[in-house]
């Protein structure tokens, strides 16, 4: 079922699919912890096609492949490739598919990952296509919640910040709906969660930063690059700040997450709080992507 599968959108995942990935991620996490990772990808090549910059996603895909004994080729600066000579995305993907066994791709245009899946002879792992989808981020977010809280079922998650443009929160809504989560959307009026993602959810919506009843506080950056009007961005940046005072109101058994990079929405003084899990969350990107690579390659 997983062999040769493309990972394009979290919308394509059933609850069982997600549980499969989380189970395998837990295995990889354990291998990493014990330092005995099997070389499941020995002799295999991952191509990382990064048509726009990324730090965490690219590095964790590369680390994941190398931990599994495979090797990596690719680019992270399209200006140094034939794309500058106006090669199409489709042709670049076809070429990479001829050189590698699996492709991880990030692209500024929404929908590019689906196009890549249509033309590629090897599995595509979508590492983010514009404002559209970033399924491996969603899966690592789910793994973080499951690992740190022990369950995904029936949790209450407060999403804070830019809920309009933030793709991570959109995909997380879609996925957590399958686990009967309840939602609290905390954002400025201008950055509210779009209706399309709220359909079928149990949720409340507010501008007030009250996270006292949440199991998960998922904080997002106000993304300057998504704003058509820079003046609007200036007005909203720094709207919410999670500091020690806010954290002191949170439940003892709760967690703070952030897809990173952060700007000023989580104060550095919070980093040492045991509920701050955002760096662990970034780390879980490696076992999650190890699991996905091994699964689509039919190795587990």
């Amino acid at each position, binding site marked *: 079922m997983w062999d040769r599968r493309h990972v394009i959108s979290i919308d394509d995942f059933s609850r069982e699919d997600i549980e499969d990935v989380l189970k395998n991620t837990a295995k990889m996490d354990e291998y990493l912890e014990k330092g005995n990772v099997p070389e499941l990808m020995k002799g295999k090549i991952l191509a990382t096609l990064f048509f726009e910059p990324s730090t965490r996603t690219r590095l964790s895909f590369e680390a994941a492949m190398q931990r599994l004994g495979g090797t990596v080729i690719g680019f992270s600066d399209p200006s140094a490739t034939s794309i500058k000579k106006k090669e199409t995305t489709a042709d670049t993907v076809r070429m990479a598919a001829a050189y590698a066994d699996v492709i991880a791709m990030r692209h500024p245009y929404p*929908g590019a990952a689906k196009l890549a899946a249509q033309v590629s002879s090897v599995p595509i792992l979508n590492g983010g296509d514009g404002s559209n989808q970033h399924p491996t981020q969603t899966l690592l977010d789910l793994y973080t919640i499951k690992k740190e809280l022990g369950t995904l079922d029936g949790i209450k998650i407060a999403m804070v910040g830019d809920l309009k443009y933030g793709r991570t929160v959109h995909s997380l809504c879609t996925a957590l709906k399958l686990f009967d989560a309840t939602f609290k959307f905390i954002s400025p009026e201008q950055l509210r969660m779009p209706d399309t993602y709220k359909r079928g959810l149990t949720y409340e919506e507010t501008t007030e930063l009250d996270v006292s009843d949440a199991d998960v506080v998922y904080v997002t950056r106000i993304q300057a690059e998504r704003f058509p009007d820079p003046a609007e961005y200036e007005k909203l940046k720094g709207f919410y700040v999670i500091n020690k005072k806010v954290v002191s109101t949170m439940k003892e058994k709760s967690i703070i997450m952030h897809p990173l990079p952060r700007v000023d929405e989580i104060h550095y003084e919070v980093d040492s709080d045991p509920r701050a899990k955002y760096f662990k969350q970034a780390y879980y990107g490696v076992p999650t992507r190890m699991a996905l690579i091994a699964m689509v390659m039919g190795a587990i």
Partner: protein
Amino acid sequence: MLMVRHIENGTVIDHIDAGKGLEVLKVLGGAGDTTIVLAINVQSKKKGKKDILKLENKFLDKDKMDLIAIISPNTTINVIREGKVVEKINAEMPEEINGVLKCINPKCITNAPREPVTTSFTVKKNPVMLKCKYCSTEFPADMIQLL
């Protein structure tokens, strides 16, 4: 009663939702060389008011009928040959529509030059919304644009 002459050959699009006639004409690609009569806010027993569009010597393919159904569900398409209605089709809303419409998201990969990709949208009802299968952008029927 408004009198408009009968057509010998062509298509009469009847029971268009009142006020949607111009939108229907737009998705058919405008008038071109075709003789067209558009009647707006005509009295109707079934709907109270309706629009009617008559196209002389023009026949519609499935894609065009799908588009009409998206803009105005429950429209009737009458095919006229030699002055007689030879076929009456109830335009049915398709579940998806491919290769006809443009995605309204300018950054969507389907709008990138030279990429080998055919646009594809799923159609949701009540209210009618189209969702791009590539970039996931959703938009209402009155925003559709032809390729």
